């Protein structure tokens, strides 16, 4: 299984290609670019919060714009395109088809993202990643706000096109000898997340248009001054975005399902329970959206319903954790870099889920809601689980893509620093939340406990920053100068058996 790139070609040949590995490469490079851009904004935020008072970032407006673009970038321009990169490379090979079902559509879906990214970055809006009305209608400065709305609109269309392509590729183009039950779990993860996208995204697409016409003053869906209701927007937004968090996390879990058995030198403990948990999560994920809205004044009954819906999704996540641990149990584990990232990611996934359960319990959420606890909670997912799974997988596919090995020692240092940094930043943010520090604040009162925790978090962020520089150097340097990889067994886990997707891509 070689994912080409070994024969050098002029860049425009890759850019105008519709072949799945070329589109995958474009997704990969673009998403990593945005990882570093978004990460730089995070460092700016943490530097500012190191001490109370204004230091690095001159004014509150700039700060608000920075955290808005930070969140938007890392969710929509890193996590999602990175998953698409992996899906493009692996899904066609795993279902033994020559390409994605609709190669041109595939390239179009990719090329919609750079203009959307440009709109978001050139606008630099300030209304947070959920653009809540009426602030986003009556208060947020244009044209930044409008550019953000258009950017997100384009990203939504791109996501839907990509999802259609994955669903059709997996269901209709898989090799006739292969039953759906034999499709590997990584491909299953794309099937599940794509189906969620198709059901969830249209709601937000509608809400965005309504937001835009509200901003233009021609409608008042969410504007109380015109008889509208901002809470309606919150429902539409979270109806899309609670399920969307599973769109983000499911492919990362799929990637771990590739890594864990390979490096444990054992088959996956239970293939069927992996599939079952994916499907269950995709369905139950739609029953919990208003757990983000306990404090909006919902009735006791409504809150109870959404709490039960949220708790109902937990066993499915827990099944994945069990599956991973049972696979590693008694395995001859080889802790190469990808395995370290995957195992670290699972540990953080578990702690993130435990915090989520606390949020879901109604009375506790009134302590944690909109404090730094929530920031810590979801970053243990987006950074601790999803970025960890993704980066681990990047190391895993690196030899197949470039034909060379990355530097193993640097990969391990990258992991260790990132793991320590992640714990320093996001565990302390949970504590800050319990102290009551609100999220999205440019400055905070000089309460000694708050200062101490903020400083630990900021130091942790710098540790992650350093590790990412090591990562960048490793990736770039090894692509040209790394040791040539052994395509049969690049990680030396012992023979072909452990790489079951040898199946030649039919187009080669």
């Amino acid at each position, binding site marked *: 299984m070689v994912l080409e790139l070994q024969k050098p070609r002029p860049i425009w040949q890759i850019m105008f290609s519709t072949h799945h590995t070329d589109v995958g490469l474009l997704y990969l490079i673009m998403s990593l670019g945005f990882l570093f851009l978004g990460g730089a904004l995070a460092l700016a935020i943490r530097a500012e919060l190191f001490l109370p008072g204004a230091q690095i970032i001159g004014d509150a407006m700039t700060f608000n714009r920075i955290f808005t673009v930070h969140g938007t970038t890392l969710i929509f321009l890193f996590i999602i395109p990175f998953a698409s990169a992996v899906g493009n490379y692996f899904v066609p090979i795993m279902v033994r088809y020559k390409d994605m079902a609709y190669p041109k559509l595939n390239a179009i879906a990719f090329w919609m993202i750079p203009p959307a990214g440009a709109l978001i970055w050139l606008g630099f809006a300030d209304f947070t990643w959920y653009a*809540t009305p009426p602030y986003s209608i009556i208060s947020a400065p244009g044209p930044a706000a409008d550019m953000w709305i258009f950017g997100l609109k384009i990203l939504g269309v791109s996501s839907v096109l990509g999802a259609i392509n994955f669903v059709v590729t997996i269901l209709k183009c898989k090799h006739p000898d292969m039953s759906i039950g034999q499709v590997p779990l990584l491909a299953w993860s794309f099937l599940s997340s794509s189906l969620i996208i198709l059901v969830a995204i249209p709601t937000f697409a509608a809400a965005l248009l309504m937001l835009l016409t509200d901003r233009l003053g021609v409608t008042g869906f969410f504007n*109380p001054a015109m008889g509208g*209701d*901002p809470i309606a927007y919150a429902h539409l937004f979270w109806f899309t975005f609670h399920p969307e968090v599973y769109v983000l996390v499911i492919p990362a879990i799929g990637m771990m399902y590739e890594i864990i058995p390979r490096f444990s030198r054992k088959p996956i403990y*239970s293939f069927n329970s992996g599939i079952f948990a994916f499907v269950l999560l995709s369905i139950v994920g739609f029953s919990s959206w208003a757990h983000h809205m306990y404090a*909006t004044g919902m009735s006791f009954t409504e809150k109870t319903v959404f709490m039960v819906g949220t*708790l109902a999704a937990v*066993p499915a996540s827990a099944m994945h954790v069990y599956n991973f641990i049972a696979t590693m149990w008694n395995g001859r584990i080889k802790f190469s870099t990808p395995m370290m990232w995957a195992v670290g990611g699972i540990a953080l996934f578990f702690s993130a889920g435990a915090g989520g359960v606390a949020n879901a319990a109604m009375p506790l959420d009134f302590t944690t809601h*909109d404090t730094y606890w929530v920031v810590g909670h979801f970053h243990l997912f987006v950074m601790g689980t999803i970025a960890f799974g993704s980066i681990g997988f990047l190391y895993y596919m690196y030899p197949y893509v470039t034909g060379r090995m990355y530097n193993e020692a640097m990969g391990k240092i990258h992991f260790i620093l990132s793991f320590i940094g992640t714990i320093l930043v996001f565990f302390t943010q949970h504590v800050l939340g319990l102290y009551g520090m609100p999220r999205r604040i440019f400055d905070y009162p000089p309460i000694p406990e708050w200062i101490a925790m903020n400083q630990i978090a900021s130091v942790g962020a710098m540790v992650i920053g350093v590790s990412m520089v090591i990562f960048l150097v490793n990736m770039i340097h090894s692509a040209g100068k790394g040791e040539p990889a052994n395509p049969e067994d690049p990680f030396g886990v012992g023979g072909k058996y452990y790489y079951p997707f040898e199946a030649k891509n039919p187009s080669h």
Partner: protein
Amino acid sequence: MGGHSNWPEWIYVGAVVAIMCWVGAEAWEAERLVEHVPEGAEIIKVTGQQWFWTFEHEDGTKEIGELHVEKGKAYKFEIHSTDVNHSFNIHDYVVLMDAIPGRVNTVWFAPDAVGEHDIQCREYCGLIHYNMRGTLIVEEPHS
């Protein structure tokens, strides 16, 4: 697939389901008690606007940024906003409720000790959100 027995996984899933049921039941019971507003709670109207809090007592007195209440009494906040969303928060007493234009949300509390506590806004509301703060001052009963 096959070859190994599944009962440890079933026990594990059963344990997770049981823990979730327990968390849900405890939360349901606690929230039910917390939401029960005591008879005769005094009403305080809370208005959030960019970027300060205004309070109006039952007797018509108004305060800005500071809120004076008496120890041992129950108070019911009626919270709304005149511009964008805010969230009224006294963290020390776990008082949290969104202030939303076009709606009135309620939440109650009964301070049990004399002292000062921070009031803050916990929902992003723009430029000075970070400093939309106030002080709760709990005093001895006047009587």
